[in-house]
């Protein structure tokens, strides 16, 4: 009997306590923020969308090599000795045309490993996190600043320079071979014939 009345009293009392708790929460400010209108401040070192400052890029491929998911693809072309590509903000002289600098942000895992090796600090994580697209292709960001015409131009010039260099080398090799042939016969014939042209150099 005592338990019966105790139970009733306790249930009524705890219901009242519960109602007091919910009523107090009715008047506490909500924790929800109205997202597109109000945004939370991101932490200082938040890693979101990648950005490349092409003015400072020297085309060293360090970020490409560091990337664990291979989302960065770079292509460079040698510049002529007469070309002036300017210097980076850190005072380094730029020697390569960066004809392609694509980041597939859909693959990016936001690890930030590409940021640390960059000698000129030109690739960095920004605080932009809204970049959804309807087409996945739009998530490949092209950072290269050269127009297709300029790219073709620098490629042609580089190829010409390579050809000249190869011709020069071949001439030098021929001269050396002639000099060798004029000299007393060596015990063995020269094994290494210089190739017609050196192999193409995709990487410096």
């Amino acid at each position, binding site marked *: 009997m005592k338990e019966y009345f105790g139970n009733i009293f306790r249930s009524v009392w705890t219901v009242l306590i519960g109602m007091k708790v919910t009523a107090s929460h009715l008047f506490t400010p*909500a*924790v*929800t923020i109205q997202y597109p209108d109000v945004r939370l401040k991101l932490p200082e070192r938040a890693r979101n969308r990648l950005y490349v400052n092409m003015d400072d890029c020297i085309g060293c491929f360090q970020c490409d090599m560091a990337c664990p998911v291979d989302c960065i693809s770079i292509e460079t072309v040698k510049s002529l000795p007469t070309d002036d590509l300017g210097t980076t903000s850190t005072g380094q002289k730029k020697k390569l045309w960066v004809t392609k600098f694509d980041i597939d942000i859909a693959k990016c895992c936001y690890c930030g490993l590409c940021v640390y090796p960059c000698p000129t600090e030109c690739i960095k994580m920004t605080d932009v996190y809204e970049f959804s697209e309807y087409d996945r292709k739009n998530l490949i960001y092209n950072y290269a600043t050269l127009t297709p015409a300029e790219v073709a131009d620098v490629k042609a010039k580089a190829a010409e320079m390579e050809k000249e260099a190869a011709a020069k080398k071949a001439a030098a090799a021929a001269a050396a071979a002639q000099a060798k042939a004029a000299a007393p016969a060596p015990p063995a014939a020269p094994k290494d014939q210089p190739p017609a042209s050196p192999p193409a150099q995709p990487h410096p």
Partner: protein
Amino acid sequence: MEELLRRIVDNNLIVWFVMALLPLVWIVPYALVAVYLERKVSAHMQDRLGPMRTGGWHGWAQTIADILKLIQKEDIVPAAADRKLHLLAPFVVFIGSYAAFAAIPFSSAFVGSTVSIGLFYVISVSSIVVVGLLMAGWSSNNKWSLFGAMRSAAQIVSYEIPTALALLAVVMIAGTLNLQTINEQQAGWFWHWYMFRKFPFVFVAFIIYFVASLAETNRTPFDIPEAESELVAGYHTEYSGMKFALFFLAEYANMFAVSAIAATLFLGGWNSPFGDVLAGPVWGLFWFLSKGMFFVVIQMWLRWTLPRLRVDQLMYVSWKVLTPWAFACIVAIGAWMMF
């Protein structure tokens, strides 16, 4: 009200039709507001904001948008369902909850029907809802729906006993079942309300009625018939579009009906709390509706406070707590009236 209408149009059918539709003029906007209010109350009790976008200011148009969406929705009837019963069930449920409004006095000047057994009529006609719920659960041909309907029937039938007994306590003092007369007996300042008469027995009867009415409307903590976590949505799992909306409307109409009966019998109905100040037919309507809304808000408050009861706990509360206490109240009030 009826006489006024008769003076305008001298046709019985039209007068009856208008009188029958007038409560709907309140119930439909009330349901829109109450659904919005329910979402807002629940949100703020959980430190959220609730709907904030639709319509601009604090999402005020959210329920209107919801209704527009429900109207456009396809009305799906499951292939294995008992088609006739499936189509009929939501209407039976709504008729059951709407019929109760016929005898509820909205104001001193407006009551649908001045039947002398008003309270008896209200209690009995709201039982039709159980039939509709069973129809919905059975015809859906879905085990969860049937479980929900059976639980709901068991719950409503058990809780009708403490409800009726608690109301009987007031009927004993009033000596009538006519709701309009009961209202008139409570005229004057708020201490004339039945809730404060024969203290504390009628007050206890009031609490018993309120708890039991929560169970009758399938509201939390007595919402095991539509327990989301176990039964998906109970008896209306297989309903979509406007039929689902009709169930929803019936639930909210029911909430207001039980609140209106609580207000009429225990809180003086359309009487002003301050005697003759702010009294009159129009103010009466205001007081009646605000008393009803007060209980609706308390129902929401309880819903977002308490967890759901287990089936055995539900039956325990009905048969071992509410019913004996209601009997004790009746005996005590009877003894008080005799001596």
